[in-house]
C-alpha cells in the first residue's frame, strides 16, 4: 500500500520541453512512472522522450486520462500553471518550482480550498512510492519498498534520512516532500493523516525545520489522533533569528516563534522523539519496528 501515488497514477508533466522538465521526465520514465503526457503552451503536437505534448493541461488530461501533474514551470509562470492544473481537474499536483512569489501562492491556496485537488509543494522534491511511481526529482535508487512513511519540508534532508533507513534494510511505503515555502498545499497534518490511515505504514518519520508553526500543529495532531509511532528531526537549531536559511519558509521570527526549540519541545510533548542527527532518527524507527 501507499499514499497519494501508486503504479496506476497517470502523470502530465507541465514544462516538459524545458531542460529540467525533459531530464526528469526521462528519469521518471526510467523509474517506471506512467508519464502519459506533457503540457506546454504553444508546443502541442511535439513529443518529448516519446511522450506526447499538448498545449493545455485540460487537453492532456482528457486525451491521456491523466490524474496527476508535476510542475517544472519557471517561477514567473508557475502560479498560473498550478491554477491551470487545479482547473483541469486532476487529483494531485506536485509543484517542484522554487521561488514562486508568496502572494501568488496565497491566491493558489485560496483556490485550493475550493477544489478537490491535492497540491504538494511548491519548492518540493516530489513524492515517491518505491518500486511503483515517483513524481518529481527524488533520486529513485536510494529508496526501497517497505513499511515506513516519510514526510519532509526539505529535499536533500529527505535523501539523507532515507539513506540512513535504507542502509539498515528499512524500506518506505511513500516519501512525501511538502516543500520549504511559507505557503504550501499539503501540510504535515495532511500527510500524517494519510499515513495513519494506511494499514501498511508501521512508523513515520517527520522532518521539519525552523519557520512557521506547522510542526507544532502536527505535534497536536499526533498526540490526539495517531496510533502509528512517529520519530522526528528538526533542522535549524543553530539558525540565527531574522535570517532566511535558504528556504523562503525557513526564517525564525525576531519574536521567537518558529524556533527549532519550540518545535522539538512540542514534538517531545506529543511523545515523538526527535533525533540529534539523522542517524538517530533511524535508530528510533528501528526500535519501533
Amino acid at each position, binding site marked *: 500500500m501507499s499514499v497519494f501515488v501508486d503504479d496506476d497514477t497517470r502523470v502530465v508533466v507541465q514544462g516538459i520541453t524545458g531542460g529540467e522538465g525533459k531530464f526528469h521526465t526521462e528519469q521518471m520514465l526510467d523509474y517506471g512512472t506512467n508519464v502519459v503526457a506533457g503540457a506546454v503552451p504553444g508546443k502541442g503536437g511535439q513529443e518529448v522522450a516519446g511522450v506526447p505534448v499538448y498545449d493545455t493541461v485540460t487537453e492532456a488530461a482528457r486525451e491521456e486520462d491523466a490524474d496527476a501533474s508535476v510542475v517544472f514551470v519557471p517561477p514567473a509562470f508557475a502560479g498560473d500553471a498550478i491554477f491551470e492544473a487545479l482547473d483541469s481537474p486532476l487529483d494531485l499536483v506536485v509543484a517542484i518550482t522554487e521561488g514562486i512569489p*508568496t502572494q501568488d501562492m496565497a491566491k493558489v491556496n485560496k483556490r485550493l480550498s475550493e477544489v478537490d485537488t491535492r497540491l504538494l509543494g511548491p519548492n518540493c522534491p516530489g513524492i515517491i512510492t518505491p518500486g511503483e511511481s515517483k513524481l518529481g526529482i527524488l533520486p529513485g535508487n536510494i529508496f526501497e519498498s517497505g513499511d515506513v512513511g516519510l514526510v519532509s519540508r526539505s529535499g536533500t534532508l529527505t535523501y539523507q534520512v532515507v539513506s540512513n533507513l535504507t542502509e539498515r534494510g528499512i524500506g518506505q511505503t511513500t516519501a512525501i516532500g511538502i516543500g520549504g515555502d511559507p505557503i504550501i498545499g499539503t501540510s504535515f497534518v495532511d500527510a500524517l493523516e494519510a499515513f495513519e490511515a494506511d494499514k501498511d505504514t508501521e512508523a513515520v518519520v517527520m522532518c521539519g525545520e525552523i519557520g512557521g508553526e506547522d510542526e507544532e500543529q502536527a505535534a497536536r495532531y499526533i498526540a490526539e489522533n495517531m496510533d502509528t509511532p512517529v520519530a522526528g528531526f528538526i533542522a535549524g537549531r*543553530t539558525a540565527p533569528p531574522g535570517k*532566511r*536559511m535558504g528556504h523562503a519558509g525557513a526564517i525564525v521570527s525576531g519574536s521567537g516563534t518558529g524556533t527549532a526549540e519550540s518545535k522539538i519541545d512540542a514534538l517531545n510533548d506529543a511523545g515523538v522523539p526527535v533525533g540529534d542527527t539523522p*542517524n538517530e532518527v533511524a535508530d528510533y524507527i528501528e526500535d519501533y519496528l
Partner: protein
Amino acid sequence: MKLHEYQAKGIFADAGIPVPDSRLASSVDEVMDAVEDIGYPAAIKAQVHVGGRGKAGGIKIATSDEEAREAAEDILGMDLKGYTVEEVLVEAGVDFENELYVGITMDRGEGEPVAMVSTQGGVDIEEVAAETPEAIAREHIDPAFGLHPYQARKVVYEAGIERDVAGDVASIVSTLYDLYEERDAADIEINPVMVTADREVVAADAVMNIDEDALFRQPELAEMEDEAAEDDLEAKANDYGFDYVRLSGNVGIIGNGAGLVMTTLDLVDHYGGSPANFLDIGGGAKAERVTNALDMVFSDENVDAVVFNIFGGITRGDEVAKGINEALEQFDEIPKQVVVRLAGTNAEEGMEILNTDLVQVESTLEDAVQRAVANAKEVNQ
C-alpha cells in the same frame, strides 16, 4: 529585501499617504542645507537596515543649528549594530497627540494577508503582540478579492481609533494594502502613524520588505537594493547567486539543499564545533559553482576548516568532484583543510575522480562533520 525608510516613504507619499517634509543627506553640510529648508524641530534619522535605531542612538531631534550639526556629526559614519551609517533622513518634527500602528503582513498559517491596527503605536509592536494581543485588531484579507473598504473601516473601528481620524486611518490601511499587493511586499508597516493636534494623520516611519522571489516583476524596487547594507562576504555571495548567511564560528560549511545544509550546521554544533556560515550551492550545481563556493569560504578569515556535504538528487557527484579538484588545484598550498562527503546521484563516479591528495574524504555525514570539527580544533591549538 528591505527598503530604507526614505525609499518606503517616497513610495507611500506617491500613493497619497501623508508623510513629513524631508530630505536625504550624506554629509554634515547637506544636513545643514536640509534643516534650513525644513525648519525646526527636525529629526535626523540614520538610514540603515536595523531595528531599534532610536534606542541605539541613530535618531536625534534638533531644535537649533548647533544641535543639528552635532547630531549630523554623531550619526553620519557611526556604527549601528554592525552597519556604518552613510545617509540620514532629515525630517520635519511632528507635534503629535497620539501614536498609532498600522501594518499588513502574510499570515502564513492562514495563507492569507492580514491587516493590523492598534492604538499602541510608537513602541515595539512585537512586544504588544506578545503581551496584550487584544490591543491589536486584525482583519484577514482574501487574496483573490483584495481588501474591501468595509474591512478597512472594520479593523480601524475594532482597534478603537478615535472617530474623528478613523476615516483617514482607514484610508491609510486601504492604500497600504494596494501597495502591498502591487509591489509584492512581504511586510508593510507604519509605526507610528502620528495624530497631530490639528487631527491630521502622518506616517512618521515606514517599513517595507519586498518578497525577493517577486523582484523579477518589480524592477524599480530591485534597483533600490542596497549592497552597502550587506557584509562584504554576503555581497559576494549575492553576486555568485548563493544562499549564504554568515555566522560567528570557524567551521565553513558548504552543501546542497537548505534542509541538509542547516542539518550540517546543527551537527557541527552537536559535535562541539561552531559553524562559520550557511552556504547552499542549490540544486544541479556545476563545477564552476563549486569553485565559487570554495572561494567564498576561503575568503572568510574566521574559517579554520571546511566541510563539503553533498547529497545528490539533481546535483551530480561527479560534477561536484570536478569542481572541487579544479578549485583546489589552483593553490600551491590549500588554505584550509577540506573534508568532503558525497552521496546520491553519481557519488561513486565523483569519489573516483576526486583528488584525495587535496581533500579528506568521509562516507557518512556524521564522520565528515566530526572530522571537520577536529580539524578546526587542531588549527587553534
